[in-house]
């Protein structure tokens, strides 16, 4: 396997576009596991994008912010200028060692249904900017994930920006997850809730749940039940019941579908109450 360290986006795209099967790598935390499990063919070329300055950090844009995909999960977890659900999701990932290497772009492109930044990004209606030698395109988060570990990224394409609109930076959000144990736990289910509140009333709601479907799922029925409701005395039960009907969990080595169905409600309740400020 060949390994190239890219210092600019152009250099990375050149390398990625030039060889079939070549892959970008940032922190490498997921790749090592994929290769160890024998689940992916060993790529002929790895292009290390972790050090590309243009892919780092968070900058303001005309209509919101752009997060560099090579920003580490550790940094995302501790930033105060990002929505709470995203920071909480980042904090739930792995361990300190993993968070110091892993990147938000890596978490997104690995597209595991239980990725803890995924449901927050879907709830925040993030947009992913993909670049290749032939140009760039922007894909909404909800359309980016097409199956477990499958995205719309084409050959030679690189995620170069994660955009969140100003509208979603305002408001309140929260994230919850549960795993088999307390430390370094993979999510059996995770949930992200974002609310726009005005005068104690929910004006807009976004609810996304991970690991209950092949991709992180927006629960639009649950969202609809929240809009227009007053926060004070909010009855969450109908919302949770609607949510339970919208998800399609499966049983796997981590959890049974029954457990996922039951626990999704608990996670949503907690996330909802926190986002609503109750």
């Amino acid at each position, binding site marked *: 396997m*060949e390994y*190239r360290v890219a210092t600019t986006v152009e250099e990375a795209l050149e390398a990625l576009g030039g060889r079939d099967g070549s892959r970008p790598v940032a922190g490498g*935390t997921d790749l090592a596991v994929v290769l160890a499990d024998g689940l992916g063919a060993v790529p002929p070329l790895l292009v290390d994008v972790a050090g590309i300055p243009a892919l780092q950090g968070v900058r303001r844009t005309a209509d919101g912010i752009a997060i560099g995909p090579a920003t580490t999960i550790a940094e995302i977890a501790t930033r105060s200028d990002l929505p709470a659900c995203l920071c909480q999701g980042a904090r739930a990932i792995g361990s300190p*060692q993993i968070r110091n290497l892993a990147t938000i772009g890596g978490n997104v492109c690995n597209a595991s249904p239980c990725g803890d930044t995924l449901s927050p990004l879907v709830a925040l209606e993030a947009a992913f900017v993909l670049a290749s030698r032939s140009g760039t395109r922007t894909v909404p988060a909800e359309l980016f994930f097409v199956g477990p570990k499958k995205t719309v990224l084409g050959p030679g394409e690189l995620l170069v920006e994660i955009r969140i609109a100003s509208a979603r930076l305002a408001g309140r959000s929260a994230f919850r997850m549960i795993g088999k144990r307390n430390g370094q736990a993979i999510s059996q289910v995770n949930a992200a809730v974002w609310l726009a509140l005005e005068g104690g009333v929910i004006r807009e709601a976004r609810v996304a749940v991970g690991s209950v479907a092949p991709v992180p799922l927006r629960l639009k029925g649950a969202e609809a039940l929240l809009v227009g409701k007053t926060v004070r005395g909010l009855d969450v039960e109908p919302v949770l019941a609607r949510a339970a009907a919208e998800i399609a969990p499966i049983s796997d080595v981590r959890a049974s579908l029954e457990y996922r169905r039951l626990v999704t409600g608990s996670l949503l309740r907690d996330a909802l109450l926190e986002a609503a400020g109750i």
Partner: protein
Amino acid sequence: MKDETMRIEFTCNGKLTSVEARLDMRALDLLRDLLGLTGTKEGCGRGECGACTILLDDEPVNACLLYAAKLQGRRVQTIEGVAGADGSLDAVQEAFLEEGAVQCGYCTPGMVLSARALLRKNPKPDVPAIEEALSGNFCRCTGYGKIVRAVQSAAGAAQRAEGAVQRAEGAVQRAEGAVQRAAGKASS
């Protein structure tokens, strides 16, 4: 080109180190096999156990997940770099021994480094902070209780040492002041 190697230069335990390695080699293998630093252990190869924890620019990472290329120009500390050059143990190492936080010792290098990284940033960690910092280091022998106590003890020891240093510095300042006053009197 296949099996192409590159010169990777980085600071390892305070020493500028230069080694020829394939860029896709794991840092774990570079340290253990090329540099003979076998204190960093392989427990799972997937970043799930923490036995391979090293400090990269003072931050703990899993060496089994780290590609050698990423060491270029960075500062690495392994367990071999923790004790003093004269063999004196650091506060965390002493505390681990004193509190019985070492049994088979395989997780110990990783634990010690994660603890040191914590205490550098947070000299007075509470129990949740200790747990969070060590949440990526697994131990099958001790049940973790004595490990938590060892980190608390090391934090206390560091503070006591710092207090002693401050008191000593204060004493030196007072002595210097006395000397100056004496000199002043002598010259006036």
